[in-house]
């Protein structure tokens, strides 16, 4: 099972991605496997059963962290 997602730098700031990964380390190790001009690839080191739930929670958390740097009320 492919446990890799592509995150776009135009959507999520790289700092938010790094912060989210470090926050999720106790739950599941996530590796930045590849970074190119537009995308950051994250690989989840977890079981197939857990993957979908962790990925969904991770993406929601990433959206929340990305919004922290946005200051309009």
């Amino acid at each position, binding site marked *: 099972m492919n446990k890799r997602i*592509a995150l776009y730098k135009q*959507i999520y700031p790289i700092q938010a991605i790094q912060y989210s990964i470090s926050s999720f380390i106790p739950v599941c190790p996530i590796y930045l496997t590849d970074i190119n001009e537009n995308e950051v690839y994250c690989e989840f080191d977890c079981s197939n059963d857990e993957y979908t739930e962790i990925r969904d*929670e991770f*993406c929601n958390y990433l959206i*929340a962290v990305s919004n922290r740097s*946005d200051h309009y*009320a």
Partner: protein
Amino acid sequence: MTRIFKVTQNVLHFSIDTKAYPMSAILKTAYIFIEKYYIFLSLNGSELLVDMKRKDGVLVDESDAGEFYNELLNQILRVHIYQNTKNIRELILGRALHQTCIEIESSAIIETPDESSFNIDEIAEDWFAQQEDI
């Protein structure tokens, strides 16, 4: 332009044109929806692809995307207000901060003596020479 909504495995897929909607508004809208939905955002050229899945397992349909679009309009309005009132907010903040500056009373300021109020010859005279005269 026809909007395409697709549901596969209880995940709703739809796209948003990033030329029409600012990215900050889209991200803010997504943030509001993460309480009830799992959201994943990706890009395809200028199209932002949104994948939405309900946390409680209820089936998703087009009305969920409609809710997202409505909130997106709300957020765009907020972005416009934010941009249009940027100058006045900075002015109000600057004025408020200026008023908190500590004011120094005029009596507390040490006045420097005027040069014409003393004679340099009286100060520069040798003390021993003065005593000899006495």
